């Protein structure tokens, strides 16, 4: 249903700020998880 309409859709939005923001979010999630994991290993 969506395939034919694609050609008539508006051009892709500029979401470069969004991409950087979510990648920063991903970095926060990763770093905090790693930090906790290292404490866990250290106490093991």
């Amino acid at each position, binding site marked *: 249903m969506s395939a034919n309409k694609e050609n*008539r859709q508006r051009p892709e939005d500029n979401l470069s700020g969004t991409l950087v923001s979510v990648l920063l979010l991903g970095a926060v999630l990763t770093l905090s998880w790693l930090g*906790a994991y290292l*404490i866990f290993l250290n106490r093991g």
Partner: protein
Amino acid sequence: MIQANAVGLSASRGFAGFARNDSSLVMSHVLFAYAALFIGGLAGLLQGLVRGGLITLPGGIGYYQLLTAHGVLMALIFTTFFIIGFLYSGVARTMGGKLLPAASSLGWAGFILMAAGTLIGTVLILLDQATVLYTFYAPMKASPWFYVALALVVVGSWLSGYGIFYQYRQWKKTSSEKLSPLFAFMAVATMLLWQIATLGVAATVLFQFIPWSFGWVETINVMISRTLFWYFGHPLVYFWLLPTYMVWYLVVPKVIGGKVFSDALARLAFVLFIMFSVPVGFHHQLMEPAISPFWKYVQVILTFMVVVPSLMTAFAMFATFEVTGREKGAKGLFGWLKKLPWGDVRFFGPFMGMLFFIPGGAGGLINASNQMNALVHNTLFVTGHFHMTVASTVALTFMGVLYWLVPALTNRVLTPRINRLGMWQVGIWTLGMVIMSVAMHIVGLFGAPRRTNYTTYFDNPAAQDWVPYQVAMAVGGTILFISLLVLVYNMILLFRAPKGTTEYVLAETSADAHPTPPILERWGLWVFILVVLVLAAYTIPFMDLLNTSGPGSKPWVTW
């Protein structure tokens, strides 16, 4: 503006205001919710001061009674009542402008049952007959009427859900539109999830706790009761999160002057939540015996899958801000930040909620990480986590809604003064929560237990090291309570504000948006997949618990 009279099902475009009955129904839920928040908040303040070693409680009330009241009123009552009230307001608004008689009756019936259950339960807690905390773990036994009160709240909420389902079904039958309004879709998804999730707590309360506490059966299977509770306890947090996301997807874009970023992806996220929020309860039971590491790990995998729709939501939020900002002329990577209406409490509340969800979500990932849970289980780290999520992300979003919902329901105006006071209220809450929950996360990593009265364990040095953090928690908690006082003041001002029209804030989908696949609305399909996942994740370990159960436990009253 004159309030609406009879509005046909198809006339939702010319919304002229809420019908008096509908406004009363929603307002009853909102006021009950915020009364619960205030009383629960008072309990929380006292707990914080006690645990900081700053006060001792006056005779007649115990720490664990306060804690039980705090948990029940905050996590079950404030949330459920506000959510149902908010959903009814949007259901009325988007599907005909007015509730159908049957939907309204079900809404009122639900409210009455839930309110009755809440009042009975609260009285029993204050009478020290139910000092079992909001998780009421067996084999601690409260008064049987406490479990009856819980059952009333749950069954009441089912009726509330049926009212929403009814209005939705009638709308679908009579409307010429192919897609349901996004609010309605999300409301149905939320209550559908709730109906399925509460089956677990209803089963344990109706078939285990009530017969056992009345003395009709002698023993209770503790592991089964815990497993049924946590089957409910995890999707409970999504019951809170989904309406929060509804505000983010539907209200916030309008407040900032934009449109819904993607109707299809928003619906997809909610469908993913329906499927993956339920078969994950074991991540609350990771440190328990009798459930194998294999099945714990299976449910941890499913838990991580439910993170995905939140990752989608994060993208959608930033994208909404950026698209709207660029439409207003923003340039550069982050120019859109300057275009956001920072001084509008209807934006600021939910936005601070979004910010809190970053550390909140990070903590959640850590908590759910299988063997790593040993680091944080039952420590104040967990308490810090849920104060950053339900008590910040969810609460701040709901508070932000209050400031336009109350005027919209009462045909009054959100004045600039109330808006400014609202900004203060949100800011004070934020400050208090940062201090309190950061302290909780840190002291939790040092081993401080949650759900525990002030103690140094007979001057144990490790425990004494925790006290300064607990003092910080008391400071944070006090600041939070000040925010509640400001909130009460603002509510009074809202009820005395000048008459006028306040918009019921809902964003539209852009006209050239990519189409939404109708399969997303095939509820039967998604529920079927959910049932398959639940059976896959739970059947074998649950049967295992049933087959290896011993004689069970007799009741204990240890307080």
